[in-house]
Each structure stands twice: as C-alpha cells, then as structure tokens.
C-alpha cells in the first residue's frame, strides 16, 4: 500500500502520529511522577515508617538519591525506564521489571483471547444488526448486548462462575496460571474470565459498528449498490463497511485498551495473576515505585492502541492513501 520508499504523504502523517504519541507518553510520565511526588511523605518515610528519626530518614534519602532535586530524580527514573530498569519494589525488594514482565504476559494473554473472540463477533453482530435494522434480529442483538454491558462485571463474573463452574462444572472456577503450563491447559484455565470480558466489551463495539454502518447506509453510493441488484449483505459488506472502518477501529481500540488496563475486577473475581491484581496489591502497600511503573505501562498501552487506531484510520482513508 505504501508505495516504495518514496516519501508518501501518508507516511508523514503516520510518523507524525507516532511522534505525537511518544510526546504524550513523556508528558504522562511527568504527570505520574509529579502525582506521586505530591503525596505526603516519600519512599524513605514509607520504608522506615512514622517513628523514624530525622537522621535515619536523611541517611536513607541520601542513599536512595531522594535528596536530589525532583528534576534530577525524574530524569534518573525516566532513564532507568528507557533501559528496562523499573526500579525495586519497596514491599518485597524484588526487581519490578521482572515481576511485571510475568504479570503483563498473563494480562496480555487474557486480553488477546478476549479480543480475538470479541472483535470479530462484535463486528459481525453489528453488521447483522444493521442489515435487519429495526427488525427482530437487531432488537435481540441490541437487547442482549446491552444487558451484558449494563450488569457490573463482577455480577457477570459471578453469574458465569455460578453456572459454568459450580452448577454445570464445565470449567475451572479459579483461573490459576503458572510458568511452564501448557497452552491448552492455560486456555482452559482462562476460559471463564475470557467469556466475562467478551460479554463486557461486546456491546460497545457492536453498537458502534451498527451505528457507523447505518450512517454510511444513508450515502448515495449505497443506493447505487442497491440499484446494481446486490444483496443486502453484499451491500453492507462490500460498500458500507469499508467506509465505516475509522469509527469502528477507534472504539475497538478503546475496548482493547480496557481489556489490558481495566480488568482489575475480573482478575480479582477469578484470582488471575495479572497486572490489575498486582497494581491493587501494591497500592494497598503504598509501594510507590510499583504504582509508578504500572501506571506508566498502562498509559503506554492506552496511547499505543490509540495511535494504532489513528494509523489504521489514516490507512483506511483512500483520499489519504491515494492522493490526487
């Protein structure tokens, strides 16, 4: 699509978006750093507790570099992150990067399967709902997906647990995964949380697909397609969908981001060792370096997926892809 190495206007646009995203990420890192900085007390205080003597605090601060000015510490922190050093956890003195690596892997695994199922399903349901706009298939699809999104996820989680794990005993109730587990075992373990996540994100993407398609269906070229004697599904798939990609992709990416950064509740319900649980654990322990690191990773995921949405939208636009 991108014609060779000749500098295509689209290439410029894409590079711009990515550069903007990186800039945004740096800004977010500064906000995270400042936010933590603004909290009363610091890491030394947190380690030594309320009863520490001023001398002990000063010693520890000097040792940890906390007596440096904030800017220097920020640059130091950011430099560490660039080189893969996320610092050391306060609560258990382990390397954060190592702990996060495994947790992030688990979260992405869960998000990946939820996305693989929910995105095509949502788009397909959206297309069908648009095809039968206002008729019973549309009403059923809208009704069901709306009720699953309206229920809080822990309710959906416990309902799924009750029926699929307890009553009919089809799947394990606890999504335990550990290193060295086989692929099929792992899949079997995460099946319930995946179902819950799919139910939670389905409605949003489905409704956006439906709305975007119906919007495009008003265009004159849809009438042209109908007057060509194409079937309704051919009209929607070939003529409407390619023009509805940009809004759909944006919502899909928002939901994918949610699958990574918003699954805390589902992870807790199924005792799944992912990022969300890790974050919650360390927030309660006031483990600031971990909170900072996780916050930054979540921000990176969010920004990254949104950049992807932008880039796909740009590439899906024939006017940008094929300039005059």
């Amino acid at each position, binding site marked *: 699509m991108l014609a060779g190495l000749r500098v295509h206007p689209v290439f410029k646009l894409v590079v711009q978006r990515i550069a903007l995203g990186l800039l945004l990420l740096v800004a977010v890192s500064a906000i995270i750093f400042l936010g933590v900085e603004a909290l009363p007390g610091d890491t030394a205080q947190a380690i030594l507790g309320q009863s520490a003597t001023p001398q002990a605090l000063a010693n520890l601060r000097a040792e940890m570099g906390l007596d440096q000015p904030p800017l220097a510490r920020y640059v130091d922190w950011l430099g560490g992150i660039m080189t893969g050093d996320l610092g050391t956890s306060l609560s258990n003195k382990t390397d954060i990067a190592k702990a996060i690596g495994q947790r992030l892997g688990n979260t992405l695994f869960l998000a990946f399967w939820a996305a693989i199922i929910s995105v095509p399903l949502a788009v397909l349901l959206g297309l069908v709902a648009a095809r039968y706009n206002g008729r019973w298939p549309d009403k059923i699809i809208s009704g069901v997906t709306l009720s699953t999104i309206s229920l809080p996820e822990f309710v959906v989680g416990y309902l799924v647990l009750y029926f699929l794990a307890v009553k009919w005993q089809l799947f394990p109730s606890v999504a335990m995964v550990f290193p060295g587990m086989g692929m099929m075992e792992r899949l079997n373990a995460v099946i319930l949380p995946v179902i819950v996540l799919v139910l939670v994100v389905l409605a949003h993407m489905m409704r956006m697909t439906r709305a975007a398609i119906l919007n495009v269906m008003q265009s004159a*070229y849809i009438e*042209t397609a109908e*007057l060509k*004697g194409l079937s309704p599904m051919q009209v929607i798939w070939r003529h409407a969908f390619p*023009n509805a990609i940009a809004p759909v992709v944006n919502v899909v990416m928002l939901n994918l981001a949610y699958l990574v950064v918003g699954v805390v509740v589902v992870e807790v319900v199924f005792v799944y060792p992912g990022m969300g649980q890790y974050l919650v654990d360390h927030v309660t322990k006031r483990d600031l370096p971990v909170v900072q690191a996780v916050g930054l990773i979540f921000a990176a995921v969010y920004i990254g997926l949104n950049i992807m949405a932008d880039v796909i939208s740009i590439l899906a636009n*024939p006017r940008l892809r094929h300039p005059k």
Partner: protein
Amino acid sequence: MSRSLLEISNLRIDATAYPPGEPPKTIVLVDGVSLTLEKGKVLGLIGESGAGKSTIGLASMAYGRGGARLTGGTITLNGREIRLADARALRSLRGREVTYVAQSAAAAFNPAIKLIDQVIETSLSHGIMDRAEAEARAVMLFGKLGLPNPETFGTRYPHQVSGGQLQRAMTAMALCPKPDLVVFDEPTTALDVTTQIDVLAAIKDAIRDTGVAALYITHDLAVVAQVADDILVLRHGKKVEYGPTEQIITAPGEAYTQALVSVRSIDHKEKAPAEAVLSVKAVTARYKGTNFDVLKAITIDLPAGQTLAVVGESGSGKSTLARAITGLLPPSKGEITFAGRKLSPQLSGRSRDDLREIQMIYQMADTAMNPRQTVGTIIGRPLEFYFGLRGEAKRKRIQELLDQIEMGSGYIDRYPAELSGGQKQRVCIARALAAKPKLIICDEVTSALDPLVADGILKLLLNLQAVEHVAYLFITHDLATVRAISDRIAVMYRGEVVRYGQKSDVLAPPFDDYTDLLLSSVPEMQLGWLEQVLKHRKMESAGN
C-alpha cells in the same frame, strides 16, 4: 400487443409525510402516468423539481427512494410485470436489464473502491461475463466515452478524477453489463456547461453505438431536445404533455410546455457606463497554506445601480472574488474601493457602514437561513442590528419588505421549512435589502431553482434594482442568466478575467477562445444543435 421494452401504465406512487405536530399523511408523488419505451429509443422526462421525474425513473427499476411506495398501475419491463415482484426477482433485473446513472456521480461512487471494480461489479455479480471480459468491456467503454488513458483509468479512486470524468465513468458503469435500459437521472446537471456538452455527446454516442434504450431525466428542455426521441412533460406528478421531441419543441400544445420552451425571455437593455460604486484594482489572493493564487490581478468596476455578471466554470475564482470583496479573504495585493472609500482588506478593519452597504445572497437559501427563526425574525435582524428598529416600526418595515418581494405580510410568522425554494430565496433577498445596501453580491442565486422560478427571481431583482438603485455583483455559471440580468460582464477562467466589458461588447464577436467555447456550449432549444456545435468544433480544430 406490441412488445415494448418498458411499458408503464397508470402508475401511482405514494409516500408518507410527517408534518410536525400533525398525524402522518399520505402524499401522492406520481399519479396516473403512462409511458411506452421501445428498444433502442430515448424518452426524455422533463419537469421542475417535485414533478416526479426521478421517482418515475426509479420506478422503472421498481425502486422507491426514501420510502416512496409504488401503489398502483403496472410497470412492465421486457414483458414482465415488476411493480409487485419480490426482492429476489428485482435483484436479478436491477443491474442486468436496467441500470441507473445518478445526478451526482461524485456521491454515487463508493469512495473506498477503485473505479474499475465498481464499473464491472454488476457484470460479475450477475454472472454476465468473467472478470477479463468485463474489464475489457469497461476499457472499451472508457475509450468510447472519451476518458483519458482508458487502459489505466479504472485503477484510480473516485476522488482522483474530475466530476465530468466521474459522470462518464458512471455511464460506463451503467452500460458495462449490457442492459436493455439505462435510466439517466440528470446526468449533466451538476457539470459546467463546457463539460456538459462533452458528456452529453459521449452519452449520445454510447446510446447509439450500444443500441440501449434510455430514460433521460432532466429539467433542461434544451438538453433533452438533443438526445430524446420522445418527451414526456411532467408537473406535480402528473402528465402535462407527451409527444415526439420535435412537436414538443416546435409546437407545444400545453401552456406549461410553452412556458418551458420560452423561458428566459427576459429582455434587459444594458445601461450606459456610469461612475463606479465598486472598483477592484489588481486584486490578487490565495488561500492560507497554499502557494497558488486563486485570483490573479483582478481589475473590475461596477457602476452604481447596475449589474456586473461574473461568469465562469467552477474553480475559476468567481466566489473567491466575492470573498475578497466582502473581506472574508484578505487579498495579498491590490485594493478595493467602495462608494468612494478604500475598504480595509480585513473584515475586522471595516466599519459598520462598510458591512451594511455590502450584502450577500447565496445559492442555497435553505442553509442561509436559521430554520428555527420565522421569516419576520430573519428579515428583522438586520433592521435591529443596523438601524435599531424595534416593535411596531420594525414590523412595519418587515411588511414593506415582504411586499417588495411580492410575498405579502401573511408570511411574517412562517418558518423557512414552510416555504418553497423560490420563496426562500425571496426572503434572503428581503434580508439583504433590509440593510439598505449599495451593493448586493448574488452568488449563484438562481442555480438551485427551477427555470420558471429562477425567471421570477431575476425579474424581481431587476425591479428592485430600478426602485432601490442597488448594484449587483452577479456570480453565475449560467450564460442565459447573464444575458437576462447584466449590464456588464467579466468572464473568469482559472483566476483571471479573460474578457470584460459592456454586455453588448462581451457577447459580440470576435471572441477569445475561452469565451467562444463557453458561449457555444450553452444548449439551445433546437434539434440537432449538439451535432452542429461538435461538427463546427471539429472543423475548427482541423483547420488549425
């Protein structure tokens, strides 16, 4: 019984209207219309907007646009009744036996799909031919329709080709599956006259060479006279007159047809040159972020109380000139003098009197008015803003203005949605007049109107000019309008004034090449005009 290709008898088409605050009601779009079309013939459907001509055209495909229902009569295509056919039967005949060419090809092509794939889609989906065969036929049609580089034309996307080319590509798309009937729905209306003539000729040749029958829908009698064998004149969904083209043109039977034939009969004598109220001197302008001058050293004068018509095709810079004069686009060079004072290039640097004395009327009266304000509020606003009129004084002045635009005070509390297209444009004229301007810039104010309605607006403008002594800068692409209203003419082409002077001088030979092309492209209401012009042009180019 004769085996006609298409036979429509006693057709009735209904739709449901939802007037605000009232129960839904059924409106009749087409009532009791019958027509017959033989193989290889062309039938012209003509009438003003709302006459039901597009609705009838689409009915020949058993298609009701926007909830229109084919409720009565019969539509027989190739010997089969199709009005009540089921969706599957309709799908197999649409695109195979009858195809459609829309008014705005720019909107009717899918922006996300290459032209070639759209052109051959029907041939493939109906299994009429295989891909190689269909592509070869498409390329052949592109060539026949005079598209550049027919071999590679199809690899482009709709936004990469011009409007005239798209219209031809749409004709190729309609002809590709070898249909028996093509419905042409105003295929040249959206084009410039210089482009229209080429597209018209291409369509006519294609119809002749492929032996296809056609329904040709248009509001322009002069255009349909060039292509149709028979003409059906429609009004308010009913037949007015139906007969051979020659009879309709030369001996119209009905009064309405006579009015259509003799439209644009305004005889306006040009006024002698006088002192200018507006002088534009060497104005050059470009849009921000571009490195291309849209206006190149434009110099024109407009005498007080007279009309200067600015004519040219789309993209020639006509409307940009209006933006420069109104201050919306500050020129990079040159100066504009108005009523003896130099106008600030920027809008912000102009006095309230500068603003008041230059008013505008736009092409789309619909979008130029707030749909939630009454006619009284719309016309009253400039009265308050410029003259501080309130209460009874304001109401009296509004009534005067309504009388001036020949609408009467009964309209004062109506909303724009309750008015016809012509009435909306009249309200816009009244709003401009309310400011007591010395100059009104009219930007294509009659282009969106039906010929008879447009005629009424032009007459009104001329009458108002005689009374109010207001000058018009009249922007248009329509030369008949220019003849009817102007005292002076500036012909614009690619940002330059290529011909300028009194109407009688500009419209008299010898012409420069562009003005000659422009003038000779205006369809004339006589049989064989198209052939004559094309022959004449061919001879000229051979002579060169």
